[in-house]
């Protein structure tokens, strides 16, 4: 499927739209309503508090990974407590598929990124140009966390937007849009080239303190999980205005391709507001080509299919016209 001619959501289009016209509240008693209204803000403040005040022996990468795993398990469990759509319910096969992509991401893609990703490239550039940014580690801690998140998200916004507007990058990103339901681990699904590209960032140019990087990484991970989880939240209005949510991201995944050209940011939806690509709405039917579920094999090959087709054409014997 080629990227059709068209434009991203424009300021004129988005300004006229009502604020989440199809949003439904969480079903249940006052305790459940309270929990699913304040869960996301409380977790955000808890993460900031932990990485701000934790003793050095606990502010480590290993603890960060442990928090990430525990958080994923918790959110998987919450999908059963406040389900958003029965049509997105997690099945064994979906979980196995999602876990496969998480495993590929954590092992193979991480290995590749460690050697040829933005981290080593930035280190080499800083060394070659003799760039020193130790001052970044002396600015207020919360500002370091915000800048780390914002700089990465800003880059991701433009990479993601480019993926929806330039065919070679769309070939890399398209497999992610063939998921037919949203779940906690669905953010990891995609062709490995896309997972590598979307992980590139320039925040490494700034020598923030390590725990600021861990805090930013943890918050970014949580936002990526919220935006793919099959959970109905009563997110406060200010939260919906500032942060990417499953509402925004479900619309980004809708089956109508033109509706996917919005809500590109991973964490801060206000970046989309800045550039006029935010649409405050949601969708239940997600996927491409009418909701066709793509196999792992096809997701792995899809990006390279034009090259494979060209190679097959090149190798095929040329037909000799009959005399």
């Amino acid at each position, binding site marked *: 499927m080629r990227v059709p001619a068209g434009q991203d959501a424009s300021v004129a289009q988005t300004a006229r739209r009502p604020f989440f016209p199809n949003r439904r509240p969480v079903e249940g008693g006052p305790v459940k309503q309270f929990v699913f209204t304040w869960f996301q803000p409380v977790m955000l403040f808890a993460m900031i508090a932990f990485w701000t005040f934790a003793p050095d022996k606990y502010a480590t990468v290993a603890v960060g990974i442990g928090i990430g795993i525990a958080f994923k398990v918790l959110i998987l469990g919450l999908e059963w407590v406040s389900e958003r759509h029965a049509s997105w319910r997690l099945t064994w*096969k979906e979980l196995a598929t999602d876990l496969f992509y998480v495993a590929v991401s954590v092992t193979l893609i991480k290995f590749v990124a460690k050697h040829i990703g933005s981290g080593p490239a930035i280190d080499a550039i800083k060394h070659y140009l003799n760039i020193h940014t130790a001052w970044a580690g002396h600015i207020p801690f919360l500002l370091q966390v915000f800048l780390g998140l914002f700089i990465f998200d800003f880059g991701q916004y433009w990479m993601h937007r480019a993926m929806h507007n330039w065919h070679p990058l769309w070939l890399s990103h398209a497999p992610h849009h063939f998921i037919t339901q949203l779940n906690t681990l669905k953010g990891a699904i995609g062709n490995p080239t896309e997972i590598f590209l979307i992980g590139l960032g320039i925040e490494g140019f700034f020598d923030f303190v390590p725990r600021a990087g861990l805090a930013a990484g943890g918050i970014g991970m949580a936002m990526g999980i919220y935006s793919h989880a099959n959970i109905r939240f009563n997110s406060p209005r200010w939260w919906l205005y500032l942060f990417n949510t499953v509402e925004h991201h479900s619309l980004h995944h809708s089956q109508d391709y033109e509706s996917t050209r919005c809500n590109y940011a991973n964490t801060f939806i206000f970046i989309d507001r800045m550039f006029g690509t935010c649409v405050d709405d949601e969708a239940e039917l997600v996927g491409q080509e009418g909701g066709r579920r793509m196999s792992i*094999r096809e997701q792995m090959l899809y990006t390279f299919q034009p090259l494979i087709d060209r190679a097959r054409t090149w190798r095929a014997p040329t037909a000799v016209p009959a005399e």
Partner: protein
Amino acid sequence: MILPAATPAARALRLIDWIWTVRGTVPLAPRQSGDEALALIDTLLREPGTTRQRDGDRLTFSKIDPLSQDKLAVFEQGTLHVVTALAGSELRYVLHSRALLFCLLASPFFLGISAVIDSARISGRVFAVLFAVLYVAGRFLEPWLAARLFMRTLAGEQPVPDVDHAEITGNGMTGNGMAGNGIA
């Protein structure tokens, strides 16, 4: 893979095909005919990407890229037939799942990665264990869900889909619009 039952290769395969094959039986109601039973089961297979064929008292199906919420999405191929005995008739089925096989093979795959890639030494082993656990869970859960689905369908408790996604083609019936093939 189905080989003639008598060959040594088939006997050897039978020793390990429990990894991806599920066999089971569900009793029919006292006065339920084989035709009625298979007609009810047939309603379960009216899903996009599913091709089904009825041959007497035997119903076979295959699926290509089934939808996530297809209740039999884990099983890409299957055969169901009704057997009449003195004690009463029963539905016997054999279901094949590449998804189960894939899940089990993912375990040694990530174990191998942990051995090859130094930075994945721990994470590779963790995922190898997770896939082994997930396989065991799926090997028990999915056959149980399939048996429950067949039982409820034969008892008329399973709602029949509003829309039949299938088309009749020749002797067989096939779902619409689903191309491609794959392992999960």
